[in-house]
């Protein structure tokens, strides 16, 4: 699957969605839509969230899967939470 770019390669500002297409009838919608906070996370963080949910929200299982210690994984999750809060706050503004 292609990786969704979230930062402008030129100035590193956040990218927005400007076009949505229906694969069935080719209807094209143009506009300016912000990306949801979860999609603004890095690929590594998004993968972590997906695996975390699939593991039933167990940090211990994640630690085993990632071959890292429990506090390292918990710190990574805290970092993601911090980022999500920041993105959410920006969205509210």
């Amino acid at each position, binding site marked *: 699957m292609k990786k969704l770019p979230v930062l402008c390669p030129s100035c590193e500002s956040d990218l927005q969605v400007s076009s949505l297409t229906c694969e069935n009838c080719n209807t094209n919608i143009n506009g300016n839509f912000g990306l949801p906070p979860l999609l603004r996370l890095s690929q590594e963080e998004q993968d972590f969230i997906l695996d975390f949910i699939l593991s039933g929200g167990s940090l211990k299982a994640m*630690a085993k899967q990632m*071959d*890292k*210690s*429990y*506090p*390292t994984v*918990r*710190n990574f999750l*805290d970092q993601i939470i911090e980022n999500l809060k920041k993105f959410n706050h920006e969205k509210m503004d």
Partner: protein
Amino acid sequence: MKKWINPFEKNSEKHLIFLGISFFIIGSLMAFFFNSRFDNFLHMAPVESIRIYQPFVDNIIILTCLFIFFLLAGKMIYPKTRAVDILAIILIGNAPFYLISLTNINDLTTKSTDAILLAMEGAPEDISGFYLLYLTIVGIISLAVLVWIVALLWNGFKTASNAKGIKAVVLFILALIITTIVTYLIPNIY
């Protein structure tokens, strides 16, 4: 190299605690065989005679103080800090110090110190070059071990308490200083 100064990133707390307890037992036995007392944190004193339980009690006192003050510091930074992670950190972090007792093999540190003190009272020019060289090497090794211990404790503390910023550094240093003072104040009357 990284696993020698930061084993806390990858290894589970159970694995680290098992290793740390093994080091504690081996280190205490080494201290017994080489007539060394860990009379306070980061301090080894060569002695003339020793009972087998003494280095164990020495280390238990040091590890208990480290555990209490590092857990307090960790909780102040990050309330979700787990006691089990702090236990793993202090058991592993203090382990390199057990190696210092090796410097007193055949009572060499005791003999060197005694010889130098004796020479200082009489004729300082008679100080044995061998003993001076030996104590210098011991000093360099001790310094390297000290740096290793601080690196281990800091890396572990940083991981366990998600420590960031100046507040974390200050609390870490305070935990080290308070542990040193408290272990110094506890009398070795056992």
